[in-house]
C-alpha cells in the first residue's frame, strides 16, 4: 500500500488502481493522514524551491539573445 500511495500521489496509477486507493483512504485514517502530510510537504517544497524573481540584468541579457543571434 505504501508504494501505491506514492504512485497515487504522483498521479501515476491507472484509473482502476487509483479508485481502489481512494476507497481505501476513505476508510483508513492513518493512510489518509500520511497522504495529506505528503501533499502538504510537496506544496511547501514547490512553493519554497520554485519560481524565483529573475535578476533584471539576466532578464535583459536573455531578452537580447533573439535580437542578436537569430536561429541557424
Amino acid at each position, binding site marked *: 500500500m505504501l508504494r501505491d500511495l506514492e504512485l497515487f500521489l504522483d498521479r501515476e496509477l491507472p484509473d482502476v488502481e487509483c479508485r481502489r486507493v481512494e476507497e481505501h483512504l476513505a476508510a483508513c485514517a492513518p493512510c489518509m493522514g500520511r497522504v495529506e502530510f505528503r501533499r502538504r*510537504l510537496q506544496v511547501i517544497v514547490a512553493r519554497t524551491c520554485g519560481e524565483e524573481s529573475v535578476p533584471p540584468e539576466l532578464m535583459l541579457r536573455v531578452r537580447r539573445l533573439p535580437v542578436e543571434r537569430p536561429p541557424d
Partner: protein
Amino acid sequence: MSEDAERVEGRSGSGPRTAPLPEAAALGELRDRFERDALALLPSLYAGALRLTRNPSDAEDLVQETFLRAYRGFGGFEEGTNLKAWLYRILTNTFINAYRKRQREPATVPVSGDETDDRSLFDRLAEDSLTESAEAVVLDRIPDEDVRAALESLPDQFRLAVLLADVEGFSYREIAEIMGTPVGTVMSRLHRGRRALEKRLWVSMRERGLVSD
C-alpha cells in the same frame, strides 16, 4: 520586415540584397514565439538553475547558456508539445556537461544516528514525543530557507529528480526524457531523493527544537 532583411544581409556578409520574404517572415515568427513562450518560463528555469548550481552567478550563466541553445534549436521544437520539458532537458544537459564537472558534490553533513534509517518524515513525527497535534501542522513551522537548504544538500541525481517531480510537476515519463534515464531509475531516484530530503528536514527540525532530540 525590413529589419529582418537587414539582419540576414549582415549575417551573410554579401552585398545588399533582398531576403526572400517567406524566410524572413518565418524567422520573425519564430523569434516572436520564442520571446512570448520561452521567456515566460524564465522564472521557473532560473529557480531550477539556482537549485542545481547552488550559487546565483553560476545559475545566471547556466540559464543564459540554456536559452542560447534553446533559441538556436527552437526551429526544431514541435509546437504544441511541452515547452517547459523541452527547456528543462536543455538545462539539465547543459548543467551535467558544463557545471557538474566543475562542482564537487555537496558535502553531505553526517547525520547522527543510524545511516541506514530512511524512515519517512511522517513516521518520524508520528513517533516524536514533542509532536502533539497532527504531523502536518509542524511542517508550516519549518523556515523556507531550511527547505531550500535541504533540497540543495541532496546529491545531484536525487536533487534533480525531486526538483522535476515535486517542484515542476513533471510526470515520470517526462522526467525520464529530461534526465535521459529509464522510468524505473527515475522512480528509484525520486523515492530515495524524497527520503533523503525528509531526513534532512528532520535534522533541521531537531536543530530548531521543533521536535525532540
